[in-house]
């Protein structure tokens, strides 16, 4: 048994079997992370380069930690401190790095499809760590892992994705994954932040009413308002957004049940989610981060089989 793909470019081209294999392997790596020595020798013959052409805290640290926990050699690279600022192309940059015998590439890029382009031109295994507004597959996987850990299963689970669906690669990866694994998805947000034909294109429910959506769901995945991707005004002010779509304690108390609150981070406290909700027992935001390392270890481990 192995993955059906050489690269992890997105959830879109994974099979349900691939997803199950990654998640069950991640559960074993989560146990490794509880040991006195939180490290296994599996990837000690593998060199991984982390190419971050866009800023990141969580994902980058999580990948670096996952690589080190697997005993891989790692090189980290950020665009601002490199020859990219001298005008070198993406393919030249990567080919130069690969000529130094690198086995796997973890890449984040602001252009959607950048890892897909690389995959057609280079032999190394590529893991997409977020490409523009397309996909963020390891986030989708760790969200799924966290939902299973908290609620037992994805099958039949009702998941609401709330906020800026239009610009969110996290939303897209989550939708692909949850659909493949038998969960039901509702996207909720202001009409300007929800793509027009998403209901038909991605097989999700669409709602513009936050209260109704929360009443319907078992799990609410609250997205960050991506201020850096808003080059036109899609809502009038942060305060107005927060009043209509912010998750607060009063709203959660008005529901007839306790739902699970998730957020991929970084949080804009007081905008899409209030501090008392983010820090409450209902929220599994920090467990998501913890699970991220185990899930990325699983992805690296399973793809390393193919890279040799």
């Amino acid at each position, binding site marked *: *048994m*192995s993955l059906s793909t050489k690269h992890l470019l997105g959830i879109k081209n994974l099979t349900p079997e691939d997803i199950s*294999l990654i998640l*069950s*392997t991640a*559960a*074993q*790596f989560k*146990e*490794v992370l509880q*040991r*006195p*020595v939180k*490290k*296994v*020798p*599996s990837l000690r*013959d593998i060199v991984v380069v982390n190419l971050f052409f866009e800023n990141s805290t969580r994902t980058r640290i999580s990948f670096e930690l996952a690589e080190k926990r697997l005993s891989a050699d790692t090189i980290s690279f950020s665009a601002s401190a490199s020859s990219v600022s001298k005008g070198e192309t993406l393919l030249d940059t990567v080919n130069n790095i690969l000529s130094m015998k690198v086995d796997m590439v973890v890449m984040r890029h602001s252009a959607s499809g950048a890892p897909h382009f690389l995959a057609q031109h280079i032999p190394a295994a590529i893991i997409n760590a977020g490409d523009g507004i397309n996909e963020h597959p390891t986030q989708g996987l760790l969200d799924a892992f966290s939902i299973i850990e908290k609620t037992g299963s994805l099958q039949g689970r009702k998941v609401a994705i709330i906020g800026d669906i239009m610009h969110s690669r996290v939303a897209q990866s989550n939708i692909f994954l949850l659909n493949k694994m038998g969960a039901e998805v509702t996207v909720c947000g202001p009409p300007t932040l929800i793509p027009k034909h998403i209901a038909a294109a991605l097989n999700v429910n669409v709602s513009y009413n936050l209260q109704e959506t929360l009443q319907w769901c078992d799990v609410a995945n609250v997205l960050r308002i991506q201020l850096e991707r808003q080059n036109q005004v899609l809502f009038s002010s942060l305060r107005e957004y927060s009043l209509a779509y912010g998750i607060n304690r009063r709203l959660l108390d008005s529901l007839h049940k306790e739902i699970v609150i998730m957020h991929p981070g970084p949080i804009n406290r007081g905008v899409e989610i209030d501090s008392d909700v983010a820090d409450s027992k209902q929220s599994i935001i920090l467990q998501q981060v913890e699970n991220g390392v185990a899930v990325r270890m699983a992805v690296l*481990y*399973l793809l390393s*089989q193919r890279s*040799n």
Partner: protein
Amino acid sequence: MKSILTAPQLAITIKRLAHQVLENHLGLSNTVIIGLQPRGVFLSDQIVAAIRQELPGQPVEYGKLDITFYRDDIRKELHIANRTDIPFSIENKTVILIDDVLYTGRTIRAALDALLDFGRPEKVELCVLIDRRFSRQYPIQPDYIGKSIDSIVSQKVKVYWQEKDGREEVAILD
């Protein structure tokens, strides 16, 4: 297919292994038992059950170890990882590792590496149901042996367990 141990013989052998462990570690006060995933666990479950029968009311520390991430053939083939569950400290304890068949010794080499990531045991002993003599590729030998057999490389030794295979038997497959 040639049968080496039938179900009744297997039951007696397992009981003997349990008694031998007890004989060497009376009371099991500073001793823990760890079965190797996936198939060693069927044996260790039965040995631990037999030991618990002999020591009623006394705690017997028993864990399970998966060595997938420590294998030396990791680039050849993908192995599916199983659950590791060692809910106690092995620091300064005597650890009895249990597996079904000892063949090349490579699994036990990996198990020793994995074990050391949980602490520094005082001593490690090895208990196996079947010892395939003269086929070792590493210098590893068992302390407790259910049955020693001589077999050639092309043969396979298979242990069948009730929970997994619907019957209990040890056989050589040609």
